[in-house]
């Protein structure tokens, strides 16, 4: 009985229309579908994942197979070759499937990235890096720039205090 249980397979269909077979031991780590595994296996269903593409699901599965101590390593490797986009995909997938540990680590990674980006001297550099367009009125933009110039090296901290008043 127990051996047959171990060999159960849960099927997923990813957003790019690929079918994925995942071992039960991994699938139970997806909180979202944990409770439906019995039903799904008994009826040979395929679970659709409209938010997750095959590449990302492969990463999530890989993650779930690792022990906690190996996960740090995996995170490091992935991040070096993975620009923001991959991390966001991973975060969306982890949230959809509710893999808590992965959510935690990926968001931690992204927040570190945001802190790095936040160190860039100009707002515009920050926006360029993350591909966001400012939707503030031009005069607010201008005042921020002026402020930064006037304050020079002190601006880092002080601008925060002043600019927070600007944006009401």
């Amino acid at each position, binding site marked *: 009985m127990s051996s047959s249980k171990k060999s159960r397979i849960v099927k997923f269909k990813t957003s790019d229309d690929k079918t994925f077979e995942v071992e039960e031991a991994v699938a139970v780590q997806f909180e979202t579908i944990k409770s439906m595994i019995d039903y799904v296996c008994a009826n040979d269903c395929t679970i659709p994942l409209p938010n997750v593409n095959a590449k990302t699901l492969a990463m999530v599965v890989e993650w779930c197979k690792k022990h906690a101590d190996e996960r740090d390593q995996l995170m490091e490797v992935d991040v070096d070759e993975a620009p923001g986009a991959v991390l966001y995909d991973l*975060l*969306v997938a982890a949230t959809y499937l509710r893999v808590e540990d992965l959510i935690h680590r990926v968001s931690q990674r992204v927040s570190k990235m945001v*802190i790095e980006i936040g160190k860039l001297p100009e707002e515009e550099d920050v*926006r360029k890096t993350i591909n966001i367009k400012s*939707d503030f009125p031009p005069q607010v933009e201008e005042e921020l720039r002026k402020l930064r110039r006037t304050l020079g090296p*002190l601006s880092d901290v002080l601008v925060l205090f002043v600019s927070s008043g600007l944006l009401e």
Partner: protein
Amino acid sequence: MNSKQEDDQFDRLPDALLLLIFNKLLDAKTLIRCLSVSKRFASLVSQIHTIFLPLPCFVPNPKPRELGFPIKVIKVLVNKLITKPIQFLHHIVSSKPHAAAINSNISNHFLYYSPNKVLKNFKEIKTLRLALPRLGCEMGFNGTGDHSLLKWKAEFGEELRSCVVLGATSFQRQLEREEQQEIRPPLTEEDLQSRIIWTISCLVSASMRHFLLKQIVGKLPMLQSVVITDASKQGKLRMVEQQLVELRNTVKNSSEALESSLERTPIPNLCMKLWYVPEMELPASGFAMKGLTLVLIKPASERSVSEGDLLLGDLDGEDDEEKAVFGEAMREIVKRKMMFMMEMSSF
């Protein structure tokens, strides 16, 4: 494959996830940076519930005034007394001629920005950590050549609940076991006097932080936990949810609470217990301390707080190791039988 896409990556993340990330930022600098990136960022950042905010030192005559932003600053008096009590005390006790110099130092006020201005952008904050700046000429207590030590932690509600002060004239990793010298006098009048000055300066420091918090608490309705530390890691003021509720109600009910000419919260009548050991070795951490002093303080009206409770929770320190040393020092010294009971009237 996705990396080739040049579209707006952050826009792909739903608000909830972006908020999750922002809540991990903690760093106030970055958060406020995000406020000025785009409207979406601004609206999400203003919903975060945890922030760590180091307060910058006030810089005289900052240009932004010309843009018409009144910057509210808090003047804090008694500079030297608070930042360098030990040196201060040495001057007082050992050399009278220095007194004039000290007085002139005291008159140099230091200033820092009020966090109000920033915090009003973050209405949802539940956990707030403020760090006061390192001030001007200050060297730091554990810095070069100076091995003295003074640490405190305090809890407040509407007023002081408890305060613990740990001090030592010397605090060093033990190199080799010295011959025991038990003939030292237990506690001279001079020693005692100095310990009282330490205690008062810590209490003043704590009550000024509480006063700062009073001005914020009404504007942050979700606040559940506050810790105010300082860049020199000397003191730590802590308030939990119930204490914050109590303070918020007081502030609401009387506007006087905010207008103190002292610029600090008055300290009630206190009763305190003082332990003193001329020399003590801490075997677990391998440190040795001289003139080690522990003062446990609570309001005279408060009988219920037990000493064990007061000792719970870390003093602020450079790292976990240092915190462990302080913890050990506190646990060891309260085992000593010699202890002084004192009362101090409200100030």
